């Protein structure tokens, strides 16, 4: 199987761009990735565009702006995993030998919905009965607190850590640090979550240029290799389910580690799907960074903060960088590539050699989550 390298990355700072169209959010990220790769645009043979709520032909609308047209474009919806799924489609296309160079885009404009909780699929019966994403994660949190004695103060520390990381990231939507007291005193959303324990609503775009590893040197001297590209879906269960174990991510992590021939001890930096504070803690355990039930203490040990042994969400994560859902997976990959190149500035994880990204989501009844996509990168 052919190796795949990342030779270009770009994104726009996540934020609220109420006056911009989806196309005008997307093209600057693509142009930045092309410039970063130093590639002649016509070398790009195909494009994969992930968006969850961006509407039809998002990729064509973006690429039309910059004249990158006439190539195969596939638009991909997979909830919060939309652009990480697009990344995987790009990886598979190169592995297959079909193309040598492809473009991956993630884009979303959530401000068009006017704020509030993410609009979910109304045909789902739990949604029709009132389910909203904060409540789903809140139920996970409450059960975890009940079983393992996790405290509200420990939950709040996830936000404190990620906001302190985000303060160092010029592309983050939330760039001011917060204290535990501020997190706990912010207004209640879905108990135990207060506002500052929920990712903000916003807009964003990110882009990645992939190529066959054999030609990567044409574009960049320090191309980053993709060691694993995993996608899985949730398993439908109509009965009991342990909400303290994110089954889909546990399974995906196992598959990704196996594909990469690596394990949790090899990972230096990770961007995981911290849509709400509890999520990051569950994912420490799912990725094997710590044992089941130990995530609160592991966070408090500083292991996952900048300077720690496995830095989680140096970009600020979804909680601080923001979570324009279809753009998230691609933006995570942008961050990990910058970290592995040593280009992450004040938030650089020193000596990072192996990094992973993890985007999961899709609140539908009967599933832990609908989709999960994990990538492992190395320099």
């Amino acid at each position, binding site marked *: 199987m052919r190796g795949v390298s990342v030779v270009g990355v770009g994104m726009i700072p996540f934020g609220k761009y109420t006056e911009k169209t989806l196309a005008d959010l997307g093209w600057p990220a693509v142009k930045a990735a092309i410039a970063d790769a130093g590639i002649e645009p016509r070398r790009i043979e195909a494009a994969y565009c992930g968006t969850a709520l961006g509407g039809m032909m998002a990729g064509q609308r973006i690429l039309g702006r910059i004249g990158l047209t006439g190539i195969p474009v596939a638009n991909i919806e997979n909830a919060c995993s939309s652009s990480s799924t697009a990344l995987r489609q790009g990886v598979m296309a190169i592995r297959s030998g079909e193309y040598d160079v492809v473009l991956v885009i993630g884009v979303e404009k959530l401000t068009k919905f006017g704020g*509030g*909780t993410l609009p979910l699929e109304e*045909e*789902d*019966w*739990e949604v*029709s*009965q*009132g*389910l*909203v994403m*904060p*409540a789903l994660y*809140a*139920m*996970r949190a*409450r*059960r975890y607190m*009940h079983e393992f004695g996790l405290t509200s103060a420990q939950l709040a520390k996830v936000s404190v850590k990620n906001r302190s990381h985000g303060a160092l990231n010029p592309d983050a939507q939330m760039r001011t640090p917060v204290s535990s007291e501020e997190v706990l005193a912010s*207004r*209640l*959303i*879905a*108990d*135990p*979550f207060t506002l500052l324990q929920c990712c903000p609503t916003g807009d964003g775009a990110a882009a990645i240029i992939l190529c066959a590893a054999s030609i990567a040197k044409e574009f960049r001297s320090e191309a980053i290799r993709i060691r694993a590209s995993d996608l899985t879906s949730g398993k*439908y269960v*109509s*009965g*009991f*389910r342990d*909400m303290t174990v994110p089954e889909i991510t546990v399974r995906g992590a196992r598959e990704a580690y196996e594909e990469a021939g690596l394990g949790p001890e090899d990972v230096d930096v990770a961007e995981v799907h911290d849509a709400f504070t509890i999520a990051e803690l569950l994912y420490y355990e799912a990725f094997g960074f710590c044992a089941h039930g130990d995530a609160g203490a592991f966070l408090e040990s500083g292991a996952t903060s900048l300077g720690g042994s496995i830095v989680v969400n140096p970009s600020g994560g979804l909680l601080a960088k923001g979570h324009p859902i279809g753009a998230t997976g691609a933006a995570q990959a942008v961050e990990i590539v910058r970290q592995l190149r040593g280009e992450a500035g004040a938030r650089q994880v020193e000596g990072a050699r192996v990094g992973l990204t993890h985007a999961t989501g899709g609140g539908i*009844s*009967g599933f832990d989550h609908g989709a999960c996509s994990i990538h492992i990168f190395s320099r």
Partner: protein
Amino acid sequence: MAIDTSLTLQAPPESTPILLPGDALAKGDRGEPLLIGGRCTSCGERMFPRHPVCPSCMGEDIVSETMPRRGTLYSYSVVHVGPKKWNKPFALGYVDLANSLRVFSHLLLADLEIGSAMELDVAEVGRESDGTPIVSFVFKRVEA
């Protein structure tokens, strides 16, 4: 047992259709609310709500089955945000029933605690934009 299906989730009739079979909520002999789920006659898989096909064997012969009215609260949250139509704050939770099904439901707000005994009831949980009450099944805490 005679099941009176006059107590349905579509009542009042002008409310937005709820994505449950019309007889998902019914009334028992003593007027008590009942949830009606489904059981696959081919493999025995139980489900709530009742879908037309079995998620275990793809069988399409799904019969109605009355669900236990009591269960145990697995987890819950008191929610202060979300679509306008829900009365705020509102409580949501998962209730584990003795037939091994887990039901997602609105909860009555009082005294919620993981592991407590819950019983089925019916209540107004919101209002449509035209003011029409949304009546649905709920679970409330009871003595074990």
